[in-house]
């Protein structure tokens, strides 16, 4: 199987699995009747539909229709960007806005766009200043948010 087809099949199976999981998870909630639906009714229907469309997608990909509009993705340096966001989220309340902002700058630097030393310093300082101003004046959070220790 070529790459395109493999991608299509993998995507379809993933959706099918998600649909099945949703149907199973919806059974935790009260289903009710059509005239008086419980919280589980709508998700249950959607899970079923997702399961169905997952199978259809898998079938179409197996039949070899090329994936329209699929873009090239890799597990390489592009992952540094969500990693930066993730670190920001993990650090913002534990280590403060300054450290969290530094984490993003560091991750983009690691993604390798060819920083020079003075550029790193400049960009980082400007960003930290902007983000501190946004936290204190924009969000009106106490200054302990910047550097909690």
């Amino acid at each position: 199987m070529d790459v395109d087809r493999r991608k299509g099949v993998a995507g379809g199976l993933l959706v099918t699995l998600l649909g099945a999981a949703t149907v199973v998870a919806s059974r935790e909630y009260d289903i009710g009747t059509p005239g008086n639906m419980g919280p589980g009714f709508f998700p249950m229907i959607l899970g079923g539909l997702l399961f169905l469309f997952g199978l259809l997608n898998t079938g179409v990909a197996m039949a070899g229709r090329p994936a329209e509009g699929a873009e090239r993705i890799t597990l390489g340096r592009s992952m540094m960007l969500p990693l930066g966001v993730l670190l920001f989220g993990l650090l913002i309340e534990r280590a403060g806005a300054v450290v969290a902002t530094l984490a993003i700058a560091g991750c983009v630097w690691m993604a390798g766009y060819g920083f020079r030393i003075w550029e790193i310093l400049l960009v980082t300082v400007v960003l930290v200043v902007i983000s501190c101003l946004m936290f204190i004046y924009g969000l009106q959070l106490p200054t302990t948010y910047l550097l909690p220790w």
Partner: protein
Amino acid sequence: MEHFADLMHGFAVALQGENFLYCWIGAVLGTLVGVLPGLGPIATIAILLPVTFKIPAVASLIMLAGVYYGAHHAGSTTAIMLNMPGEPTSVVICFDGYPMARDGRAGPALCTSAISSFLAGCICVAIITLFSPPLAAAALKFGAAEYASLVVLALVATVAFSIGDFLKSSTMIILGLLLSTVGTDINSGAMRFTFGMNNVVDGVSFIAVAVGLFAVAELMLQTESPTPIRPAAKVRGLLPTRADLLASWAPILRGTGIGAIFGVMPGTGPLISSFASYTVEKSLARDPTRFGRGAIEGVAGPEAANNAAALTHFIPMLTLGIPAGAAMALMLGALMIHGISPGPRVMAENPDLFWGTVASMWIGNLMLLVLNLPLIGIWIRLLRMPRRFLYPAILVFCCIGVYSVINSYLDVLLAAGFGVLGYGLRGMGYSPSPLMLGLLLGRILEENLRRALLLSHGSVWIFIERPISCVLLVATAGLIAYMALPMLRRRIALPPH
């Protein structure tokens, strides 16, 4: 005609100091993101949403609207000057705009595109003024059954008209609907799919989802492609010749018509409109071979269609509360956060909001006309800004925006997760826009579906018995048939790039 008095009231609202300022900010920001590839209007609106919580609803909608049409307006600048579409919608402008610039006619191309946009904007503000009130009046009669059917029609239309695989678009819509069920169930108070995360009790933050899918994922996709630095064309002389103007006026009017119609329909919007207009102009031309080599009609028509669609795209959101695209879905979310329940009542109960926004579109388009042309040099220089400066800044703004909604770090983690998910989905050919639409419409659909079936004691006949609902469902069935019969499925031929 009575509604033109309302429109005048709208002008009074939009010209108030604060609103005027936000209109200006929106238009400039829109131009900026329209020029910068990689940051589109949807991502910008998502990042700006938290800011709008702090300003009045009218001003925030005016600003977000400015970002939206400003971006569509400005995308063509880089298309003409650098053969680089700032927005996907201006891909078509590259076909003839860049050849014109290479021939030393960048000035006339830019000027024609600005004039086309502005004329289309004027006509579309009039169209919105004429057609929105009757539409809202009709929608006032809608009950739960009609609303549920309308949402279904909108979702199916999104699938039917969007570019790309309709199986995948449907899958994305269902996924979006499913995401909307996360959180507290309004009727029973039960917690659904929260998995113990307290940030999703009131539902998944659509801002986190939008930032992840449209900002983070987009930047990730761009890391794979090296920054193309193309030589910018020189601008010599701005004014189009008499012949240019004579050749342009008919394409502008046709483009406006095409854009106005496509803009209202869910799923189509500016992108398809500009392609459709290009195809029409090419087929009407006496000498179609000129197209692709600098035909001014190929700039004027699509540019008018693009801007027209960007404006009429607002009609379903403002009058029915049903967004026709992902950007509109986000604006709908902004209104809901301001405590305004979007729908046909907005026009009567909140005339400042409705007419102020419509009037601001005209003012904003005028600003763009005045602002864009003299500042082209600055936009081009901004475009050359290396990514290593741009990316950290965009990511920091994204994170702060997502965090600030309810000051939850979990939302930031969610945005990171949706970034990876969006990246993976794009890699498999799934588009994130239908997901966004499903997420914002899911609650409306579920609520109305449940209410309608409660009234009918569980009988689905209620959707057929009520005439308006029946018509909407017949239209839905028609669309499904149109998709299921590929022989009937006429595609707009995409010209070779």
